[in-house]
C-alpha cells in the first residue's frame, strides 16, 4: 500500500543547481514504485535565509517534493538523505490530509434528485 508523503529538503546553498538535481534524483530513485514511472512533484523554493543557523550556515536552498511511497521504503530513503553532507536538514511528513476533499457527497445528492 502506498501513501502520499511530502518531504522538505534544505540543501547547502553553496551547492550548484545541477548537484542538487542530481542528489534529488538519487534520493527519489529509492522511493520509485516498481512499474510506475510517476516522478515526484517538485517545487524549488530556492535560496532563502534560515531563521537560525544550521551547521553554521545562514542560508539554505529549499526544495519540496510530493510523492507516493510504501512505508517500508522510507527508512532507507531517510538513511540516504542523512548520510548526504549537502543536506542541512529534511522533514518527511504524511500529506494525505492536504488532498482536496472528495466530491462524492455532492454527487450522491444529485443522484437522489435524479431518482425523484
Amino acid at each position, binding site marked *: 500500500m502506498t501513501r502520499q508523503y511530502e518531504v*522538505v529538503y*534544505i540543501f547547502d546553498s553553496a551547492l550548484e543547481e545541477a548537484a542538487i538535481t542530481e542528489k534529488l534524483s538519487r534520493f527519489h530513485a529509492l522511493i520509485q514504485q516498481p512499474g510506475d514511472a510517476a516522478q515526484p512533484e517538485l517545487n524549488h523554493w530556492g535560496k532563502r535565509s*534560515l*531563521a*537560525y*543557523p*544550521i551547521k553554521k550556515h545562514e542560508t*539554505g536552498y*529549499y526544495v*519540496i517534493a510530493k510523492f507516493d511511497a510504501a512505508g517500508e521504503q522510507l527508512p532507507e530513503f531517510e538513511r540516504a538523505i542523512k548520510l548526504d553532507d549537502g543536506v542541512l*536538514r529534511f*522533514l518527511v*511528513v504524511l500529506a494525505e*490530509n*492536504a488532498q*482536496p*476533499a472528495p466530491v462524492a457527497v455532492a454527487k450522491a445528492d444529485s443522484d437522489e434528485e435524479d431518482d425523484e
Partner: protein
Amino acid sequence: MKRMSKVCPICELSLRVIDYKDERLLTRFLTERGKILPRRLSGCCARHQRQMSTAIKRARELALLPYIKGHVG
C-alpha cells in the same frame, strides 16, 4: 496583545489543513519572542490550536520560524 475574537481565527479562514510552510499565517500565533500563543490569547478552538502548534513546531525544525526570536547565539 490583540484581543481575542469570539470565533476561532482558523475556522474563519475555513482552511482544511494548516500548512507548516505558511509562515505568514503561523507568525500570527507567536509572541514577539517567538513563543506559541496560548489558546486564551490566540482564540483558537481546541482542534485548530493543536494543529497550529504542530505546524509551528514543524516550521521551527525547518528554520522557517525561530525557536527564540532575537536570540544571539
